[in-house]
């Protein structure tokens, strides 16, 4: 599987309006469903599409199924039913691939930033090693190349290079998220997944990290899915938004539209609570 290069000519201004409407979606997941045990329905028949360069926000309270969806899209968790395709990577349902094939897809084409950096990072390794690992798994066997790639990623995620060999354990929460981001974008992924990327950070740090996320997304033109319970985060990053409750999508549409003029009672409640 070859990694697709980002289009050097694309910018935020020209990509988004053109692609949303006309192109084939980059990500197409249909009929996702997942139960835990007999009674817990985590995700109930959810369809997701996302286009090249688009940022899709998923909002909802905890337990609404949004994180389960993200884990499925990262191929960490198999759904009970549903299919998942990433355009141009593999012509078929990714859920049907075996463990090592899924791993390859994850390494080459999907980046993820978790709310909890302990899940996404090896806290006692160097930060640069965390980024390099991804390239190692992808087959890079040249030390200088690993160093350069790590530096490039850290620069993009606005992480200070003089600290790239510190272990994440010694870094602040905001810095840890930047290490996760650098790792996530190290191979220019087709899909970037963010799970509550700024939750738990100081407000001022939040703003800086969000700035970086927005800029990185524009620079590499990747498709991004951001999950958050925080409408502020969604408002700042997302082009389009899906509102989830009890494992179902209750409302979706352009972010401005949904957030300015919510139709569903639950969304109205969310928006007003925020205001």
């Amino acid at each position, binding site marked *: 599987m070859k990694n697709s290069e980002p289009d050097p000519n694309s910018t935020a201004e020209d990509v988004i309006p053109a692609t949303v409407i006309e192109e084939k979606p980059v990500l197409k997941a249909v009929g996702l469903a997942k139960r835990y045990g007999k009674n817990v329905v985590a995700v109930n028949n959810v369809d997701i599409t996302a286009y090249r360069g688009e940022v899709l926000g998923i909002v909802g309270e905890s337990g609404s199924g949004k994180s389960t969806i993200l884990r499925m899209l990262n191929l960490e968790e198999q759904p009970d039913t549903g299919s998942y395709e990433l355009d141009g990577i593999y012509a078929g349902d990714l859920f049907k691939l075996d*463990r*090592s094939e899924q*791993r390859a897809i994850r390494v080459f084409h999907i980046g993820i930033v978790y709310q909890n950096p302990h899940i996404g990072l090896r806290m006692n*390794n*160097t930060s*640069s*090693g965390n980024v*390099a*690992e991804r390239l*190692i*798994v992808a087959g890079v*066997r*040249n*030390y*200088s190349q*690993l160093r350069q790639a790590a530096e490039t990623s850290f620069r993009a995620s606005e992480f200070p290079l003089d600290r790239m*060999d510190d272990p994440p354990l010694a870094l602040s929460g905001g810095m840890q998220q930047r290490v996760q981001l650098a790792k996530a974008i190290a191979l220019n992924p087709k899909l970037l997944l963010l799970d509550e990327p700024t939750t738990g950070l100081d407000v001022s740090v939040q703003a800086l990290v969000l700035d970086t996320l927005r800029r990185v997304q524009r620079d590499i033109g990747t498709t991004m899915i951001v999950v958050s319970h925080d409408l502020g985060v969604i408002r700042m990053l997302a082009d389009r938004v899906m509102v989830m409750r009890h494992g179902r999508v209750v409302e979706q549409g352009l972010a401005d539209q949904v957030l300015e003029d919510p139709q569903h009672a639950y969304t109205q409640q969310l928006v007003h609570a925020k205001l």
Partner: protein
Amino acid sequence: MTGHRTLSELASPNNGYSYAFLDEYAKRELRRKTLKAIAIPGYQVPYASRELPIARGWGTGGLQATLSLVGPEDNVKVIDQGADDSVNAANLRRFIFRVSACHTTTDTLAATIVQSRHRVPEEIMGEHQILVLQVPDPEPLRGVESDIGKSREMHGDGEYGLLWLGLYEQLVRYRRVTIGASYPALVHGRYVMSPSPIPRWDVPKLHMAQHLTILSAGREKRLYVVPPYTSVKPLEFDDVPFRIENQRGWTCRISGGSNKFMSEIPLQSGGAEHEISDTSYREKLVADVKRVDGTECAGVPYYDNETGHFYIGGFLKDEEL
């Protein structure tokens, strides 16, 4: 024969031991597992691993491999740290002889089976020979994954990223790879193996070797093999070559030899002297010096006596550095 045979007639006599100690079922299992290991170079084959009258961790894995192979015509050499006269080597040799009535030798070139702990001899071994290495821990992934079930899965997937990450981290922190002995190596381009705690000096000797190498861990119940003429590549980045121990300038205080792996002998007055660790080879060098007719009794070594270069040119990228 009239009437039924009694149970005591059917049972084995009280004081008899099988040839080469292990019963034939145990030997058959070991031979089958060894054949399987030969067929899948570097793959760790689990085996039952019987208890032997030698403590576990003292070479019982190597010993089981040897006992499954040895016959009265064999000539067995046993070394520990390169030495034939170490108490442990002497004990194992005594045991193998006691239960198999084989020949024993200290001469690497005369041996049909060489059982060794922590060393590969300095003289190039031939196709007719078998090297049995005692292995304390067969799992090269142990440092990054202690659960055997998971590490077996990682081997199955060829998932060795964490080993390379380990190398990367060492280079970041120390600018050098800091692994001493047990340097992991990729066998036949597929499985990463621990070559047992031999020094880095000895790892290249397993690459495209003429002899068969059996690595056996009795306590951990795994054996694996480097068949003859099989590639064994120590893990190295393209731009950071694998390095053997730097013993340049060291001279053996007994034989005067150099460019062989040496043990460091601390001196009371400070500083240290050095001795070639392969005692059999060292003695041959001493004998050479004494010999008047000018003939050599030592075989061709893996590392050239004069230049120290490895016998397969270009394999060690570090040699000219």
